[in-house]
């Protein structure tokens, strides 16, 4: 075996070399720079944006109410969608063939039809079931109330979003659960943990690592999808912006302003997602 030659001390210096040139990068910088300059100049000089008008309505009562409804709806739809989605995922993984097929059918139905159409139907449930009652199945009713008495636009909007979201969440949760090493079930079982304990303490926390990132995407998509419930009709952010420009005819300013709000809210959610992902990466070998 030959030993490496000892390096003379003066040779151990930081390397001074001419770096590789990247002409492509410079071309990109120039191209992007020109486009950015055009956009900024357009934003400033084009009066159709009407920034003063936007500023005037940014914190106005109807817009803030719309923002509040959008936030409320996003939270309700995600909370409901995740809960129902976990339930559906467990049904799909259950040993009971009836539960498995019910879950499969549910997912097939709600993933296979457009959300927009579903929401229209939820908005018109009153026509399908004019009254809701308590009674014997196929027998006489004991009490009966008109549907519209308790079924508000808010309920229709939330219900429609939850039911649709659950179908997507079910698949995300199922993939997460199936990614957990079966050896974990053996270990938990061998310690005498029940199935419920194993699921809550061992399987779900590990599945979360795979569930959280796509769920974050779902939540951000949901924030924006709430704008569709304007068809119910429900006064969320986009609906509020629309009702303002219906009288002022300042269409672009109101829509841009709504986008500013959506961007602000989704940025907050991205920060939340970052911390959640970090939490569930605990103990992961890096």
């Amino acid at each position: 075996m030959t030993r490496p030659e000892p390096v003379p001390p003066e040779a151990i210096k930081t390397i001074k070399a001419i770096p590789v040139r990247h002409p492509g990068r410079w071309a990109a910088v120039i191209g992007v720079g020109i486009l950015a300059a055009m956009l900024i100049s357009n934003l400033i000089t084009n009066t159709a944006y009407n920034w003063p008008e936007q500023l005037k309505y940014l914190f106005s009562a109807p817009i803030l109410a719309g923002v509040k409804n959008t936030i409320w709806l996003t939270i309700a739809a995600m909370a409901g969608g995740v809960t129902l989605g976990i339930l559906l995922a467990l049904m799909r993984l259950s040993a009971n063939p009836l539960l498995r097929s019910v879950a499969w059918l549910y997912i097939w139905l709600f993933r296979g039809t457009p959300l927009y159409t579903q929401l229209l139907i939820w908005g018109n449930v009153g026509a399908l079931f004019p009254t809701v009652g308590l009674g014997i199945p196929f027998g006489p009713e004991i009490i009966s109330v008109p549907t519209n008495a308790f079924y508000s636009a808010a309920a229709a909007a939330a219900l429609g979003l939850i039911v649709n979201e659950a179908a997507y969440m079910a698949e995300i949760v199922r993939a997460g659960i199936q990614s957990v090493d079966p050896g974990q079930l053996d270990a938990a079982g061998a310690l005498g943990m029940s199935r419920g304990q194993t699921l809550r303490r061992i399987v779900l926390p590990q599945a979360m690592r795979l569930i959280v990132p796509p769920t974050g995407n779902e939540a951000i998509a949901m924030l924006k999808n709430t704008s569709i419930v304007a068809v119910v009709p429900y006064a969320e952010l986009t609906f509020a912006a629309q009702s303002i420009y219906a009288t002022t005819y300042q269409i672009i300013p109101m829509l841009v302003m709504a986008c500013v709000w959506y961007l602000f809210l989704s940025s907050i959610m991205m920060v939340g997602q970052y911390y959640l992902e970090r939490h569930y990466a605990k103990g992961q070998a890096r």
Partner: protein
Amino acid sequence: MVRAEGVRKCYGHDEVLQGVNLAVSHGEVMCVIGPSGSGKSTFLRCVNHLEKIDAGRIWVDGRLVGYRQRGDKLYELCDRDVAEQRRDIGMVFQRFNLFPHMTVLDNVMEAPMRVKRDPRELAQACSLELLDRVGLTRHQQNYPSQLSGGQQQRLAIARALAMRPKLMLFDEPTSSLDPELVGEVLDVMRDLAHDGMTMIVVTHEMAFAREVGDSLVFMDGGAIIEKGAPREVLANPRHERCKAFLSKVL
């Protein structure tokens, strides 16, 4: 302590266990050897009902595993009763199966707290004692992924012991370890044996079997071919298949 009679297990059309009969008495260390695919792991998993058996009976500590017998009828035990039986049987796996999202200490405390419902202070004190016993006190706040293979397997042993089992099952506990780490795990197991634990150990460590084992069984093709005192079986096996196997591994 453990008695198995005519245990059979099929996967589809493969009969993986073809009538296993065996008895392990209190405090005995039984080592199980045999070629790959002979059903060693499967048998061990049947002892704590991780696998359902298709025929035969297994008793642990006088209780029928997985079933209740009334008259000549067998009733399947419900989930909760199976879980309760498993508390008394510790198991250590070839691939550790530690809980990666919990710290070392939490791995050990989990079962006493959730299953036995021990108060936190008690569970923690007992767990720290166990970690000391397997030499992991220093690592109690680390995650399993930060430990070496040998440390992980010692942690798995501590986790199993935390339920104060009456029987310990080891499925090739050193087979996925680097050679220089095998010793530290075997040391822990040796101590456990000296403390009088009843153990069934599937292993390829013939030196361990010879030194620590009270009895040795050789399995092949889903049946026990030969059993006896470890020295006896290892020195002069009587059956051809056992001879052939030992000549390959020794």
